């Protein structure tokens, strides 16, 4: 469980300080953007999308739109309006990262597809909380509540990936609790075109490379999605 939020240096310092360094890595770069209004999202996607170093842009719609009060990724109409706006502002292939905290993620996926997304990624973290084990009755997480990831979410993620892959023709990047090669194969069998490894990388920084090698997918994932998305 984490309540990290999205700490970062902001757009300008990301472009000036981080992007040149990241561009030196031997992989295609996927830059994830998140904002609290559609204008913010469009600006971020446009500014990173115009950079040659960036291969793909990912739109994280797991956050509330402060203008409507709705979580952009929880509601198909909200999601479609956000994706439409960003699509018009950004020429790079666009991945839409879906939240599992939606009553019908497949409906949100279809809305994103119709609004111009090139690929879908799921799941983000599941909303959760923890109570202070010291018996104060208060929250145990800095942000009051947080997001759950890792092994506990795998079966939920697998079901959502399956539902989304069945409903949409876009390539799907599946994730949620993958820490062994067999888990990755399950996601591929459920309809994912690629898989991603999050939390497991914290216990083994080489987890993604190890899993990719074990399942014979040694090609960098970004390249495959790029190929799939521009097909």
């Amino acid at each position: 469980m984490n309540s990290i939020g999205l700490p970062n240096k902001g757009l300008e310092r990301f472009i000036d300080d981080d992007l040149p360094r990241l561009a030196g890595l031997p992989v295609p770069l996927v830059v994830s953007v998140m904002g609290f209004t559609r204008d913010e999202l469009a600006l971020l996607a446009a500014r990173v999308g115009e950079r040659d170093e960036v291969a793909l842009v990912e739109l994280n719609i797991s956050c509330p739109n402060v203008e409507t009060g709705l979580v952009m990724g929880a509601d198909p109409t909200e999601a479609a309006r956000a994706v439409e706006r960003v699509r018009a502002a950004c020429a790079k292939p666009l991945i839409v990262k879906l939240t599992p905290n939606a009553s019908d993620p497949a409906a949100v996926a279809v809305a994103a597809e119709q609004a111009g997304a090139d690929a879908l990624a799921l799941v983000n973290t599941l909303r959760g909380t923890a109570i202070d084990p010291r018996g104060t009755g208060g929250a145990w997480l800095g942000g009051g509540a947080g997001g759950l990831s890792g092994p506990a979410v795998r079966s939920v993620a697998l079901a959502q990936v399956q539902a989304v892959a069945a409903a949409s023709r876009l390539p799907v990047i599946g994730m949620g609790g993958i820490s062994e090669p067999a888990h990755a194969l399950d996601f591929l069998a459920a309809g994912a075109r690629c898989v991603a490894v999050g939390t497991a990388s914290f216990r083994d920084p080489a987890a993604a490379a190890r899993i990719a090698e074990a399942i014979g997918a040694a090609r960098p994932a970004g390249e495959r999605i790029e190929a799939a998305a521009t097909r």
Partner: protein
Amino acid sequence: MNVSEGARVDEERTLAPFGRRLARVARSESVGAYRVVTVEDTRGPADPRPGQFYMLAAERGWGGDDGRPYLPRALSFCRAAPLGRDRGASLSFLLDEVGPGTRRLAALEADEGVWLTGPLGVGFRRPSGRALLVGGGIGVAPILCLHDELHVGGARALLGFRSAEHAQAARLFSYATVATDDGSVGRHALVTELLREQLDDDASATVYACGPPVMLEAVRALCGERRVPAQLALESGMACGFGACFGCVVATRHGYLRLCVDGPVLDAAILEVGAGH
């Protein structure tokens, strides 16, 4: 949140090989209330800096009935001995069993496997001049290897413990003054009182400290008043240990710093007063 980077330029850091590696437990022994687990890290560097740490997970039995522990746990090495030419180091860890992770690591037996990532973070800078070492409770771990390093120069270690059982960890030190909260061993005082006396005696010193937050805050305040430079090894929740999760940030005058990358040893002067470290 404003996240700074690389606020320290005069850092002392040995870089970790990428990824985690399996090491074997050579032995495990009790030292009073604590446990010392020694592993043979044949594929890691032979010269971690005192104050640096490793992320540890048991090869087997990691993830009990409720799935915890899943992530590795951060531990400062308390002793490192080179195993010979390019053979890595024998690393000892001092463990306080406070939860499922430290309990499992404390139960490791000889020949069991341990996943290691490290050494991580920035350690204590190599002292020059008079050094005062201050350790509280499990915080004596990184102080021990620093003390070993300075042994020739005879640096004084001031150690504070809760009880006589905990104070047995002082045996690991060749030269230490002990205080206990209950007066059962050594002085009936807080270790910061011993530090105050030392500084009253002669304030030309650098202080190196690790211990619980209240102790470190007292050390910071004491040294701040007297303009005595201090390096503090801090602790915070660490999920990854290598800068990826941002779970370990502490507020400093340079903005938030990730303790696992920019620490765990920080100059006391850059800490925000009462920032919750």
